[in-house]
């Protein structure tokens, strides 16, 4: 009887049922899409962060750079005897420098020992983030001009005598005294070759050659990011100039995520990187794996206490360092999407409640009659609540279907979001250098005190988990029950005497 009555009422009041169910479906679909997109954006952020810090990193320890600590910038100094002079008199010069990446402060490696001594640390490894700049080019034969005039390099004269007829310089890049210079930069990360539990290479897979072993400590060997190796036309066995040393390529790695490149172009053993850069016993960050996922906040606090001058960041802190359109999407979905879902959900609930109460009011005589013939308040409330619940469930099922369709559309379209994971530093102008686009590769910090550690174009993939579907159905059931409870309460307050109102 209960089910028969319920289904007859719903089918008889089809328009009202459809409106309530459609409102609920819209809200549920929105919840699924927003939740899915939020999860997708979060996954994309994690993907970018993992490419920088590696899988399993719960906390990173860095040092805040002092404003202006980078100094005037890189400088290449050539002596008079440097370079190789060709037959036409032009001189080929080349020089590499390996230094700390701009904006990435270095600190004493004893911090690693301190970190490892803190309770709750399961594993920790130190890295040194560097930047290699190679300056190369061709200088013209300036001796032609010097030979034809007087006063050049004269300690008293100071400069070329304008009164002489100097011959123009020859040679150089264009054969007429011109010059051409190339500046090649790539990022270098020094890491513990024995570390395999945590660190940047935990999110990389070997493509060619071999990865580091403990025996590589202090050796002049490198592992290259696949994207960089391709662009620089380098392969296993080739030699690469890093700083003032030639190092041998022993392997090529690629990010395990298809969405992003690895954290650096070139990987060196930590002590080799320290030696080549002159940053002995210096590191730029420590990646930490917590012993317990639930103890990360406490671990952060303990690390901050142990290293008061350091910047300690959890994954959620680091997520805020992801910039670009991915960040915009994250903000959008986090604010507008969530509020939109809440508003639509509230509106759907309200519509369901109002229609249910309105339906109860229209059925006053019906419920009054049922009460008159002995129906209890509880039975009438159950009947009304049942009708609302089924309407909510129908709306929920439809909403899940529409939501899944929306997710499918997003996944088919797969909008590309650019992302940049940046280690933020202090000082005026911070944030200026968070760049966009460009797969893989690290860029240098600009005027702003921020260094981009990795950029990536991330294709948004929206996951759908059973928990999201259950949440959606749960919300639909809750909406139906809420509307039913209000409607049932309204029905239970009707006086059975209403049924006799027609009596004069």
């Amino acid at each position: 009887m209960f089910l028969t009555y319920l289904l007859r009422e719903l089918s008889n009041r089809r328009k009202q049922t459809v409106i309530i169910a459609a409102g609920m479906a819209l809200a549920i679909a929105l919840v699924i899409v927003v939740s899915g997109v939020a999860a997708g954006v979060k996954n994309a952020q994690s993907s970018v962060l993992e490419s920088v810090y590696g899988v399993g990193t719960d906390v990173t320890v860095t040092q805040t750079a002092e404003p202006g600590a980078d100094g005037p910038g890189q400088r290449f100094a050539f002596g008079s005897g440097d370079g190789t002079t060709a037959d036409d008199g032009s001189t080929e010069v080349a020089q590499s420098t390996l230094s700390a990446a701009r904006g990435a402060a270095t600190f004493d490696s004893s911090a690693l020992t301190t970190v490892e001594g803190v309770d709750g640390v399961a594993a920790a490894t130190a890295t040194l983030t560097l930047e290699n700049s190679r300056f190369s080019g061709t200088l013209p034969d300036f001796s032609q001009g010097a030979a034809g005039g007087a006063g050049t390099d004269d300690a008293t004269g100071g400069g070329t005598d304008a009164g002489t007829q100097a011959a123009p310089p020859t040679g150089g890049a264009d054969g007429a005294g011109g010059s051409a210079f190339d500046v090649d930069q790539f990022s270098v990360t020094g890491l513990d070759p024995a570390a395999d539990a945590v660190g940047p290479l935990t999110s990389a897979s070997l493509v060619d050659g071999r990865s580091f072993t403990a025996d590589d400590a202090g050796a002049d060997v490198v592992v290259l990011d696949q994207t960089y190796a391709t662009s620089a036309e380098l392969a296993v066995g080739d030699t690469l100039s890093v700083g003032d040393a030639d190092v041998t390529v022993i392997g090529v790695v690629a990010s395990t995520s298809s969405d992003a490149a690895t954290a650096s172009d070139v990987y060196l053993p930590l002590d080799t990187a320290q030696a080549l850069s002159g940053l002995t016993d210096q590191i730029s960050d420590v990646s930490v794996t917590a012993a317990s996922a639930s103890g990360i906040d406490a671990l952060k606090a303990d690390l901050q206490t142990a290293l008061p001058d350091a910047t300690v960041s959890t994954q959620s802190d680091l997520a805020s360092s992801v910039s670009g359109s991915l960040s915009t999407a994250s903000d959008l979905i986090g604010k507008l999407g969530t509020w939109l879902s809440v508003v639509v959900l509230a509106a759907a609930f309200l519509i369901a409640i109002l229609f249910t109460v309105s339906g109860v009011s229209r059925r006053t005589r019906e419920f009054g009659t049922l009460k008159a013939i002995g129906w209890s308040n509880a039975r009438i409330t159950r009947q009304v609540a049942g009708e609302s619940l089924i309407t909510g469930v129908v709306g929920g099922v439809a909403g899940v279907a529409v939501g899944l369709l929306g997710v499918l559309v997003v996944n088919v379209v797969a909008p590309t979001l650019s992302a940049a994971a940046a280690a933020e530093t202090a000082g005026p102008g911070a944030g200026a250098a968070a760049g966009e686009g460009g797969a893989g590769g690290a860029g240098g910090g600009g005027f702003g005190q921020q260094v981009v550690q990795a950029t990536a174009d991330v294709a948004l993939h929206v996951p759908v988990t059973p928990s999201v579907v259950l949440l959606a159905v749960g919300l639909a059931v809750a909406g139906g029950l809420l509307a039913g409870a209000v409607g049932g309460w309204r029905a239970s307050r009707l006086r059975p005497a209403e049924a006799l109102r027609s009596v004069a």
Partner: protein
Amino acid sequence: MTDARETSIRSTSTSTSTSTALPASPGETDPTTASGGTAPMYTLTAVTKTYQQKKRTVTALDGVDLVIPAGQMVAVQGPTGGGKSTLLQMLGALDRPTSGTVQLGDSELSAAGDRALAAVRAREIGFVFQGFNLVPTLTAAENVETAFADGSTPRADRRAAVEAALASVGLAERADHLPSELSGGQQQRVAIARALVKQPTVLLADEPTGSLDEATRDEIMDLLEGVWRDRGLTLVIVTHDSAVARRAQRRLRIAGGTVAELGS
């Protein structure tokens, strides 16, 4: 919150006579039934019912004393606003008096809680309304089945009782029809079947022929008289129609909240 009156019906008297002597025919008046002779089905003592209406107190029933013996057919007439509805609500356990007592058989209704009153309605009383008051989305059989309010009767028993009730009002063939597919007279027959299916001791009819034409009115009254006679029900009919009222054993007139005997 628990209603202080949410208690079981309490018995206030012990009837020594349980037999009900039906009159030989409708319309035959036994003057002793108003005060004794058979066990009273209803005993109303000094029943007053007042309402607050726009800061004004309206007295719908004013110290009504009334005894309705079991098995009696009573017609209640009176002007609009005279208190017919209120009296029927008291008899039907739909409302409680402001003062005085209403006793149905051995059960005192005045102080009973909502749940107890609902149980009395489900067990003892059948209602027939002027507007039929059928659930429009349910078939005739399903409407009759709604009378099994507590859902404790087995499904097979319910179905059998519904079939028998519909057959008793001549609508066995219309069991699967919706109310909208039935005439007014047929709808009222369904309503009568709904009222009778649970074998009540009292049948209260609120203008049962008010929405029907003359021929159908007579059919319905024949039906009501038939079941009253066959089942020994106590039948109370509120009506404006003197032709209907004249078929009752006893006629009451209620006006200004007071009840007076009209005789047969």
